[in-house]
Structures are given as structure tokens and as C-alpha cells.
């Protein structure tokens, strides 16, 4: 059973703070993804990684960066948090190639930026 865990379920930060969201998967998946989920906007891809130290921008990368130093861990970084980054953040992982479309999601981190 694939397990994707996220470091926090709820997080409250102040404007301007540097924020780290961590995601860990235990199924040796090559691909990992970060999405934000907003009511009425659905899921939007922020960044994804298809290998260690490899990353690719998604649809809304502005204001975010990522780090993948180990295969099982994918971090999302908000360099200077802003109120418009208040959202639910979902991490996902998948196998490569054709199997990539079956993504396994974490429980989400609800981030509030005050």
C-alpha cells in the first residue's frame, strides 16, 4: 500500500516567513508532485520532479521553489510567504512513464498565511 505522508496537516505562518512543506513517500516512486487545491480552482500543479535533483515547473510556480535531494522526499519552499498562498497543498507520487498518471496523494497540508 503506497504511503505518502506530509509533515503537517495544519500550518499557520506570517507574511514574509520562509515556509517548508515536506513530503515523503515509501514506494520508491520516481515522480513526485506538488499541487495546491483551492475551491473553485481545482488542483493546480506547482512543481514536479521525475528524479533526484531534477525538477520541472508546473502551471503556477511563481513564489515557490522545490528541493529533491533524496528519492523519497520532495520539499516545497515558500521563500517569502504571502496571504495569497493560503491554501491546501497536496503532494503526490507516481511511477515513471505510462504509470505516471496514477498518482498517489498525501493527506494535504492546510497552510494559512496571516
Amino acid at each position, binding site marked *: 500500500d503506497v504511503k505518502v505522508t506530509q509533515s503537517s496537516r495544519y500550518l499557520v505562518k506570517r507574511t514574509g516567513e520562509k515556509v517548508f512543506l515536506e513530503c515523503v513517500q515509501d514506494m520508491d516512486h520516481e515522480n513526485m508532485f506538488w499541487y495546491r487545491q483551492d475551491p*473553485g480552482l481545482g488542483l493546480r500543479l506547482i512543481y514536479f520532479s521525475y528524479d533526484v535533483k531534477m525538477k520541472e515547473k508546473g502551471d503556477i510556480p511563481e513564489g515557490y521553489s522545490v528541493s529533491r535531494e533524496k528519492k523519497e522526499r520532495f520539499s516545497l519552499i515558500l521563500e517569502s510567504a504571502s496571504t495569497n498562498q493560503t491554501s491546501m497543498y497536496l503532494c503526490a507520487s507516481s511511477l515513471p512513464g505510462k504509470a505516471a498518471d496514477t498518482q498517489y496523494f498525501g493527506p494535504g497540508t492546510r497552510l494559512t498565511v496571516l
Partner: protein
Amino acid sequence: AQRVTQPEKLLSVFKGAPVELKCNYSYSGSPELFWYVQYSRQRLQLLLRHISRESIKGFTADLNKGETSFHLKKPFAQEEDSAMYYCALSVEGSNYKLTFGKGTLLTVNP
């Protein structure tokens, strides 16, 4: 670029009634289509994919390339079907990234 449209933000039906969640896509090639579901307080998970042509929890979805649609259907809705449903698309050459629709919140009333 590819796009997925779910025209209904909210859909409410009574238990036992048929339900259809609409999904339309725009892509000139041959995409693969999926439905993902998120039940209350649970993780987002894959419900079904068009290439499998299977029924999951009584739901089916047929890819209609002429109408560029992939509607999700169930003949008799159950209260436990209440959830947020997302239609998603992947295309070859994009590292199989998924493009999601904005979602439809289905409520099945007793």
C-alpha cells in the same frame, strides 16, 4: 495546451437517482482520461481510467472523442457517493503530467 472543463461546481441528487458528472476536454491528440475522487476527510484517489473500461463502485465513464467528453455516470446514486470528483487528462510527451478540472462536488441526499 490541453484543458479540462467540468461545467458543474455543485451537483445534488437524491439517493437512487441516476447521476452524471460532466467532463469535457480540449486536446488535438489522443489523451488519456481519468476520474479522481476525494471523499470527506480522505485523500484524493484514482476512481477510474478510460483505458480500463471498467466499472468502479458502480461508476462508468466512456470516452467520446467526437464530443471530446468523458462523463462519469452511475445509474443509482448512494449517499456514500457524496464527494468531490475531478476529471483529469494526461498526454504523451508531457511526462504524463495530469491536468485536472476544477472539480464537481456531488451531494447525494437521503
